[in-house]
């Protein structure tokens, strides 16, 4: 479904992504794990066309994504939940969700999707008229995910959804990710929390300083000695 081939990204002279290849099959949860500065966010931004690649190719449903402008990517079914949530702090919860369906015009279907988001995140419905900037971190993460779902995506790109959350919330968020996947959305999950990410995903890639050093089925990587030593020690 999503295929990244020989991806290179530079920030000025910094060579941040050095020839990355990976693939996400429809219906899967695929995780990209790696420590700080490995290049995870950069890869997601390159997929969303927020930054330019210097070489390589990214295709979604066999179409090259570089033909799209950044704001057009969401229209073909790619929703990106950025690192650090990035909810609109001055808009209400409801307005944030409306922005998630910004380019859509099918009012009835939008209403249904809104109901689905409220069923999945009852907290958001309780707080729908609250300004998003005053939500707690966990609530903001739920809003960011709910907002992305309002696009009715085929694939959901999640950048460290567990970042900064209490352990109990981390569990909840990972459960929700699994549920979203079970209801038919393919997921590319970027995480530092390797343990949880490997437990819910089908396939995994390990990223180190811009290169993929290991890949395989998630349950295999959970037992891999190198992975255990580097990422599962805590």
């Amino acid at each position, binding site marked *: 479904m999503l295929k990244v081939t020989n991806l290179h990204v530079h920030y000025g002279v910094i060579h941040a992504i050095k020839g990355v290849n990976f693939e996400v099959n429809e219906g899967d949860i695929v995780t990209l794990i790696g420590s700080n500065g490995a290049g995870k966010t950069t890869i997601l931004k390159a997929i969303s066309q927020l930054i330019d690649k210097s070489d390589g190719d990214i295709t979604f449903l066999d179409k090259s994504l570089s033909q799209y402008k*950044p704001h057009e990517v*969401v*229209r073909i079914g790619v929703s*990106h939940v950025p690192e650090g949530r990035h909810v609109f*702090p*001055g808009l209400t919860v409801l307005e944030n969700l409306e922005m*998630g369906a910004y380019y859509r015009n099918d009012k009835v279907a939008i209403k249904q999707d809104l109901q689905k988001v409220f069923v999945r995140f009852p907290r958001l419905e309780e707080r729908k008229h609250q300004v998003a900037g005053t939500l707690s971190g966990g609530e903001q993460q739920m809003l960011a995910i709910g907002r992305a779902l309002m*696009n009715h995506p085929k694939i959901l790109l999640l950048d460290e959804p567990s970042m900064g959350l209490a352990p109990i919330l981390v569990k909840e968020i990972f459960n929700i990710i699994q549920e979203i996947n079970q209801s038919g959305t393919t997921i590319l999950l970027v995480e530092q929390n390797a343990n949880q990410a490997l437990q819910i995903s089908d396939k995994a890639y390990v990223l180190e300083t811009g290169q993929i050093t290991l890949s395989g089925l998630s349950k295999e990587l959970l037992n891999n000695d190198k992975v255990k030593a580097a990422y599962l020690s805590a």
Partner: protein
Amino acid sequence: MELFIRQLINGLNTGSIYALVAIGYTMVYGIIKLINFAHGEIMMFGAYFAFLLAFTLSFNLPFLLVIVLSMSFAAILGVLIERVAYKKLRQAPRISALITAIGMSLFLQHLAQLIFGSTPYVMKPLIDTTPVVLFNFAIPKLTLLTIGLSILFMLLLSFFVLKTKPGKAMRAVSQDKEAAILMGINVDNVISMTFAIGSALGALGGIFYAMTYSQIYPTMGVLPGLKAFIAAVFGGIGSIGGAMLGGYLIGIIETMTKAYISSKWVDVIVFGLLIVILLFKPSGILGKNTKEKV
């Protein structure tokens, strides 16, 4: 008491103009963090457009059409300025964009001088000026119209920004550009729309200003532009409600100073106020006290 009420009405008249112009400063600042110093010149061009439409055509356009057309031309001018001069500088250091804005302001002043010459045009009021008697006060129709139309347009703007989808998209872009792109919002178009609206309202302010003082000339936008900018800072730059409030406060402070102190003191007090705000409450009356995110 009678003098006071009369001055209050004058203050509301001037304040309406400052408020209309201040909205443009604050909207543009809200969306691209730029003080658009050319905004006073858009105000000036708006007045020239109205003059040309009202007095040089071989047929008579109704007053409202003159206003709407002038606002539309000014909107186009504002969008052009952004696309030509500011767009490329969005990622550049603030100071480069600021210098460009000052350059654009001077460029437009001299362009107006080339086209129209530096002799002022006499702007006759576009409506009849017989006073209307209201609560025992004879108020010029122009004053009523200035205040009334300004408030009407501000209400329309508030509705647009708070309740409509493009208005919400505008707020979304001003709060988080990257997230807005991820929602599928075309940020370039939203920025153009912001310039268009701000410029149209600035032009309306310019037309009222020209009718109030009966003159149009290439540098007429400088002083009211600066004062409207102060009004925007006073109210809290980036806040549309703040710009409206700041505009009316500056307008009222100005007329009261003229009436009860001396007209010589007006500019000293208004510009002194700017310094005081910047010293004690840089975020303005309605501005958020949060540190600016870069």
